[in-house]
C-alpha cells in the first residue's frame, strides 16, 4: 500500500519548496511476541509469554525515565518507531542508550515499526499538532497489539501525559503512569529511579526551604527558541559550547565563532542554569561591566566557595587552571588592554548536555522517621557540575556512598537542578570505589570484551605458521639480534630494536613494532571495539586494555625468545646518525632479550661488558645522542614533567613509597628511535595518501598561553624569548642560576603553558598546520605502540597500503568518518590521561593518610591570601593559605608585578620560586571526605 507524504520546507536560500515523498506501508511487520502464531515464524521475537504485561511506552517516558528502563526489572517493552524518532530528535544521548537496549540480546525490548505497518499508520489530521498525532499513533499501535494478541496478554500503555492517558482509557486501553506502574511492581528501590514530574518541583521546594525569601525567582527565564534564532541571526546573541572552568565552577567560557573569541561568563546567575558542555546562546554585557571583578563569588550568595584542592602538577595547558582573573586587575595599571575579553550572560540553552554524574550526598542530619521520602543535595566529584537535588527513600543507605545521579530539570525557582538517583558504586574513600569513579568520570569502558570480540582472536596458543613465513611480503629477520627495552614489569611490549654494524662502517638500525594489524582486521567487532576504546588506560597498579589480554600480553607482545610478527622500519645510518636509506617491511623477529631501562642502563654503564648485545646498546646510544642533539638544535623543546611512581604493596595494593620517576639515558635512547620511526612513517604515508593520513600535530602556543610563564620569568628577572620553539629552547637552556633545581622548575612551568598534541586527518588541514611544535618536526604520527593506541593501528594500515602489502580499507575514503576517528582518539587519549592523573592523586591521598610529612616546596604562583606551592618530591601542587579562610587577607599585600606577597611592617615576604618548608597531612573536615592539606612551617 502506498501513501504519500507531502510537506513544505524552506531551502537554505530561503525559497519555499514543496516536497513529496513516498511512504510505503507493509503487511510483513511482526509483533515480536514469542507464542504468537499469526506472525511469520522466522521473524525475530523478544517478548515472552509469561510477561505480566507488554509495555508500550511513550516518548516522554523514554526521554525522562531512561534510567528506569535500563534497570533489569523492566522487561517486555515495545518501542514504537514513532517514539524512537522523536527521542532521536530530542536527545541523541538518550537515543543511543535506548538503541543499546534494543540491540542487547539479553533484554526483551522490541522495536515495532508502527509507521510502516499497514494497520498502525495514522494520517495527519487537519489542525492536529504533531505531538497529538504521535500520541494518537502510539494509542493506535497499542490498540493493534491488544487486538492482535487477544485477551490472553495485557498490553499496558505507559504515559505520564494526563490527556493521553485519559484518551487511551476512553478507547478501552490499559494505561498507567510510570509511578503507578513501578509502585505495582513492589520494588521500593526502583522508585528512586523514577523521575518526578516537573510539576512536583514546587512542592519539593516547600519541603526544603522554610525561608520565604528563597522562593523568589533565582534565574531569569530562558528566551524562547524563536527569539534565540532570530537574535543569533541579527547578531545580538552568540552561540557556542559552554565550558566551565575546572578550577572555578563560577566562571565559564563560551567559544563563539561569531566573535572569534571566548566570551567569559561569571557567576551562576549569568550562567543561567547552563551545564558544562551545553550549547548556549549568549548575550554580551555592556562593556563597562567587562572589568574583572574579584568579588564575583560574593554576588552569588551561596555557601560554596572557591577553593583549590591539592592536585597533581599539570602536564600541559589543558590540565592547568586557567589564568583567569587574578592578575590583570592590578592596582593602578593604566594599560588600556585591561580585560579585552568580552563578558556575557546566557539567555537560552540550545542543546542540553545533561549526563549522569558521580559523587556523593552532602552530609546532612538524618531526618527523623526513616523510610519516607527524603530530599538530599548531591555533590558531584566533578567541580564543574552544580549540586543536584534528589529525592530518595533509602537515604541511610546512600549517605556515605559514591552514587551516580542523573539530572532531570532545572526550574527558575530552584537554585539547584533536580535529579534522580541511578545507582550506587560503593563506599566513599574505598580504593576500588574511587577508582571506579575515576573510570566512570572519564568515560572509560571497563566492561570485559564481548564474545563477538573474543571470537575474532586467532586460535590460541598462537605460533608462527608456515604461511606467515612463506608470505613474500614478510621478511624473515629471526637471525637478527633484536632486543627490547621497556619499563620494568611491562607485559605489552610493542617495540624492539636492532643495530648491526655494516661492512662499510655504517649501521643498520631497525625498529620493530608489533604487527597488530595482522590480527586486528578492519571492520571486525574486535576492530570496532578497539577503535571505540582508542587507547589502553594505565592507572596505578592497574591497566585497562584496548585489545583483549591474549593479544596484548602474548600474541602481539614482542617477548624474548619467541617468534613474533612485526612491522619494521630499517634505516642505514652513518656513524654520525645521518639516515642514508629507509625501508619498511613486515617481518618475523625473535627477540633475544627483553630488558628494563635499568638493566639496559646498567649494561651500558658497566665497562667490563663487551658482549654483542651491550655493544649494540652502546652503538644505539651514541647514535641516539647525536640524533637528540640534532633535534634540539632544530628547536625541539626539552620539557620537563614531574611524573611520580608508586611502589605498590603486592598484598593490599596500597602505595608503599612514592617518588619522582627517574629518566635515564636508556629511556631517552628508546624515545629517540621511536620518534625517528614515527617521523619516517609519517613522511611515507603522507606521500602516498596526502588526503587521508592520520598524523599528529602540536599547535604553537599563543602569546596569551605563554603569559603566565613570561610573567613569572620577568618577576625574577629572567628574559625568555618565545618567538619560536627554537628561541624558547635556547632561552630555556640559558636559564641558569646557582639553584640546581631552578632550570627544571622553569621547564615545568613552560610545559604547562603548552596545549597537548592532537591527532588529525591530513585532508582537514594545510601543510603548515601539520607542524609539531614540541618536537620541532614538520610531520609526526604515532606508529610505535599499536598494542595500546588505536592511532598506531590506523597508521599501520596506511603504511601497509602504501607499501601495497594490503588494500586500503574503505573507511579511509570517507573523510568525515576519518575525522570522527581522530576526534574520538583525541577524546579517549585525553580521558585516559585524566584518569591516570586522578588515579595517582587518589593514591597520593592514600599514601599520606598514614604518613604526615614535612618537605620542601617551591612557590609557583602568588595569590591574594596565600600562594600555590609545588612539591617536587611528590609531583603535587596545592594552595597554602596565609590567612584563615573567610578572612579577606587584609594584612598581606600582593605585588603582582614581582609576584611577591609581603606583610606590611615586617620583613616577612614570599616570592615566586622561593623555597619554603611545608607540612603535608590528610585531614577530614567532613566525615568520609578526606583531603590533603598543606601548611607552612
Amino acid at each position, binding site marked *: 500500500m*502506498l501513501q*504519500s507524504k507531502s510537506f513544505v520546507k524552506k*531551502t537554505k536560500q530561503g*525559497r519555499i*519548496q*514543496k*516536497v*513529496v*515523498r*513516498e*511512504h*510505503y*506501508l*507493509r503487511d510483513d511487520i511482526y509483533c515480536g511476541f514469542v507464542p504468537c502464531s499469526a506472525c511469520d515464524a522466522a521473524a525475530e521475537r523478544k517478548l515472552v509469554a509469561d510477561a505480566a504485561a507488554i509495555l508500550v511506552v511513550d516518548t516522554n517516558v523514554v526521554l525522562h525515565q531512561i534510567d528506569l528502563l535500563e534497570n533489569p526489572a523492566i522487561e517486555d517493552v515495545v518501542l514504537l*518507531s514513532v517514539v*524512537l524518532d522523536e527521542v532521536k530528535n530530542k536527545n541523541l544521548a538518550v537515543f543511543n542508550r535506548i*538503541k543499546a537496549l*534494543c*540491540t542487547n540480546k539479553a533484554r526483551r525490548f522490541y*522495536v515495532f*515499526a508502527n*509507521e*510502516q505497518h499497514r494497520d498502525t499508520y495514522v494520517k495527519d489530521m487537519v489542525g492536529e499538532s504533531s505531538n497529538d498525532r504521535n500520541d494518537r499513533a502510539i494509542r493506535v499501535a497499542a490498540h493493534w497489539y491488544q487486538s492482535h494478541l487477544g485477551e490472553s496478554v495485557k498490553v499496558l500503555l505507559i504515559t505520564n501525559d494526563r490527556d493521553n492517558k485519559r484518551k487511551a482509557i476512553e478507547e478501552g486501553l490499559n494505561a498507567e503512569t510510570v509511578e503507578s506502574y513501578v509502585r505495582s511492581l513492589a520494588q521500593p528501590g526502583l522508585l528512586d529511579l523514577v523521575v518526578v514530574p516537573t510539576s512536583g518541583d514546587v512542592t519539593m521546594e516547600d519541603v526544603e526551604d522554610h525561608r520565604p525569601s528563597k522562593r523568589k525567582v533565582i534565574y531569569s527565564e530562558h528566551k524562547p527558541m524563536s527569539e534565540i534564532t532570530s537574535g543569533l541571526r541579527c547578531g545580538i546573541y552568540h552561540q557556542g559550547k559552554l565550558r566551565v572552568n575546572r578550577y572555578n565552577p563560577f566562571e565559564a567560557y563560551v567559544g563563539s565563532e561569531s566573535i572569534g573569541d571566548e566570551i567569559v561568563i561569571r557567576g551562576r546567575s549569568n550562567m543561567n542554569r547552563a551545564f558544562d558542555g551545553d550549547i548556549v546562546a549568549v548575550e554580551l554585557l555592556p562593556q563597562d561591566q567587562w572589568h574583572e571583578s574579584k568579588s564575583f563569588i560574593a554576588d552569588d550568595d551561596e555557601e560554596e566557595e572557591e577553593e583549590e584542592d591539592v592536585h597533581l602538577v599539570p602536564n600541559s595547558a589543558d590540565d592547568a587552571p586557567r589564568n583567569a582573573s587574578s592578575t590583570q586587575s592590578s592596582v593602578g595599571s593604566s594599560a588600556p588592554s585591561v580585560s579585552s575579553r568580552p563578558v556575557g550572560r546566557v539567555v537560552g540553552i540550545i542543546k542540553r548536555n545533561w549526563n549522569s554524574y558521580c559523587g556523593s550526598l552532602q552530609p546532612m542530619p538524618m531526618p527523623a522517621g526513616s523510610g519516607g521520602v527524603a530530599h538530599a543535595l548531591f555533590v558531584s566529584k566533578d567541580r564543574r557540575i552544580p549540586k543536584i537535588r534528589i529525592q530518595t527513600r533509602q537515604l541511610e543507605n546512600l549517605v556515605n556512598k559514591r552514587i551516580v545521579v542523573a539530572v532531570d530539570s532545572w526550574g527558575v525557582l530552584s537554585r539547584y537542578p533536580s535529579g534522580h538517583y541511578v545507582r550506587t558504586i560503593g563506599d566513599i574513600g574505598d580504593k576500588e570505589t574511587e577508582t571506579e569513579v575515576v573510570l566512570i568520570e572519564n568515560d572509560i569502558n571497563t566492561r570485559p570484551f564481548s564474545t563477538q570480540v573474543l571470537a575474532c582472536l586467532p586460535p590460541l596458543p598462537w605460533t608462527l605458521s608456515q604461511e606467515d613465513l612463506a608470505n613474500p611480503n614478510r621478511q624473515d629477520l629471526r637471525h637478527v639480534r633484536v632486543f627490547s627495552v621497556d619499563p620494568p614489569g611491562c607485559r605489552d611490549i610493542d617495540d624492539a630494536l636492532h643495530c648491526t654494524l655494516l661492512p662499510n662502517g655504517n649501521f643498520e638500525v631497525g625498529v620493530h613494532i608489533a604487527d597488530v594489524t595482522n590480527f586486528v582486521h578492519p571492520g571486525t567487532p574486535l576492530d570496532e571495539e578497539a577503535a571505540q576504546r582508542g587507547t589502553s588506560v594505565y592507572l596505578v597498579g592497574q591497566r585497562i586494555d584496548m585489545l583483549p589480554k591474549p593479544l596484548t600480553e602474548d600474541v602481539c607482545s614482542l617477548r624474548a625468545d619467541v617468534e613474533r610478527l612485526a612491522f619494521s622500519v630499517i634505516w642505514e645510518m652513518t656513524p654520525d646518525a645521518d639516515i642514508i636509506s629507509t625501508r619498511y617491511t613486515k617481518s618475523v623477529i625473535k627477540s633475544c632479550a627483553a630488558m628494563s631501562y635499568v638493566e639496559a642502563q646498567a649494561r651500558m654503564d658497566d665497562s667490563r661488558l663487551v658482549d654483542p648485545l651491550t655493544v649494540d646498546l652502546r652503538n644505539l646510544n651514541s647514535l641516539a645522542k647525536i640524533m637528540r642533539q640534532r633535534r634540539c638544535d632544530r628547536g625541539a623543546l626539552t620539557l620537563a614533567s614531574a611524573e611520580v611512581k608508586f611502589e605498590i604493596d603486592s598484598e593490599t595494593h596500597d602505595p608503599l613509597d612514592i617518588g619522582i620517576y627517574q629518566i635515564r639515558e636508556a629511556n631517552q635512547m628508546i624515545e629517540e628511535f621511536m620518534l625517528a620511526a614515527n617521523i619516517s612513517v609519517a613522511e611515507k604515508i603522507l606521500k602516498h595518501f596526502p588526503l587521508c593520513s592520520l598524523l599528529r600535530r602540536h599547535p604553537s602556543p599563543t602569546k596569551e598561553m605563554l603569559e603566565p610563564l613570561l610573567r613569572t620569568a620577568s618577576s625574577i628577572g629572567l628574559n625568555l624569548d618565545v618567538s619560536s620553539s627554537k628561541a624558547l629552547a635556547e632561552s630555556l637552556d640559558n636559564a641558569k642560576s646557582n639553584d640546581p633545581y631552578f632550570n627544571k622548575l622553569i621547564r615545568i612551568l613552560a610545559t604547562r603553558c603548552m596545549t597537548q598534541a592532537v591527532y588529525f586527518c591530513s585532508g582537514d588541514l594545510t601543510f603548515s598546520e601539520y607542524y609539531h611544535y614540541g618536537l620541532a618536526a614538520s610531520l609526526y604520527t604515532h606508529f610505535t605502540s599499536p598494542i595500546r593506541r588505536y592511532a598506531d593501528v590506523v597508521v599501520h594500515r596506511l603504511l601497509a597500503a602504501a607499501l601495497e602489502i594490503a*588494500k586500503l580499507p*574503505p573507511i579511509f*575514503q570517507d573523510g568525515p568518518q576519518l575525522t570522527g576517528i581522530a576526534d574520538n582518539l583525541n577524546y579517549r587519549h585525553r580521558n585516559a590521561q585524566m584518569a591516570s592523573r586522578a588515579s595517582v592523586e587518589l593514591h597520593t591521598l592514600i599514601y599520606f593518610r598514614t604518613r604526615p610529612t614535612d618537605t620542601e616546596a617551591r612557590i609557583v604562583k602568588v595569590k591574594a591570601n596565600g600562594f600555590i606551592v609545588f612539591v617536587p618530591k611528590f609531583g603535587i601542587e596545592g594552595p597554602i593559605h596565609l590567612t584563615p579562610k573567610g578572612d579577606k587577607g587584609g594584612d598581606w599585600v600582593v605585588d603582582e608585578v614581582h609576584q611577591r606577597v609581603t606583610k606590611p611592617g615586617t620583613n616577612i615576604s614570599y616570592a615566586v620560586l622561593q623555597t619554603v618548608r611545608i607540612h603535608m597531612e590528610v585531614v577530614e573536615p567532613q566525615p568520609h571526605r578526606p583531603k590533603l592539606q598543606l601548611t607552612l612551617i
Partner: protein
Amino acid sequence: MEYVDPLTGFRVDGRRPNEMRKLKGEVGVVARADGSALFEMGNTRVIAAVYGPREVQNKGQQVNSKEALVRCEYRMAEFSTGDRRRKPKGDRRSTEISLVIRQTMEASILTHLMPRSQIDIFVQVLQADGGTRSACINAATLALADAGIPMRDIVTSCSAGYLCSTPLLDLNYLEDSAGGADVTVGILAKMDKVTLLQMDAKLAMDTFENVMGLAIEGCKAIATYIREVLLENTKRLECQRG
C-alpha cells in the same frame, strides 16, 4: 542522516534495502506517435514517444547508409522538480543522458534491418524523484516495442546505491542526493548482457560487485514486469482485432 534505520532495517520511505519502488507501465499514451509509453518508478514518471522508422530527415547526420540512424532527445519538464526552474534545452546533463539512452537503445535495436531510415526517441520527465535515467530507458523500451521496431531483446535499467554500508536498490531522490555511490546498470534481460554501466563515485571492488549484482537483479525484475505489460497490451490488441 541514517538512510537505513539500524533498528528496524527500513529505508526512509519504508522499503527494505533490496526492494524496488512501485512500477507502473502503460503503452500507447501518445496517439500521434508510432509508439509511446508512460513509465513510473514510484514518484518518478516519464513519458516516451517513438517516431520511425522513417526517412532520414537530415542526410548529413547519416553515417552508415546500411543501418538505421537512432536519435534520442531527453528533456525534463520544467514542473518535474520541486523548484520550478527553466531547464534549458541541450544542457550538459540532458545531452549526456540523451547520449546514454541512445547508445543503450542502439545496442538492442536491429538497425541493420532498417537501412537509410531514422528512428527518433523522445523522452520527457514529467516528475523527477531519482532514477530518471533508468526510468527513461525502461519507457523507451516499452515505446519501441509499441512502435513495433525489431529489437534483439528487452533493455531494462535500474540503479542501486551504497549508503550506511548497505547496498540499496532503486534510489529515490533523497537517497540519490546523499552523496553515496550511484550505480546505474542497463541489461539485455534474456541475453544477460550489460549495455550500460555508470557510477558516479568511488566504491571498493567487492562492494561494487555486490551493488552491481543488486542492480542487475532489479533490472531482471523490471524486465519481467515490462514483458507482462507488453503481453497484456498484445492481448488487448488481439481482442480489438477480434
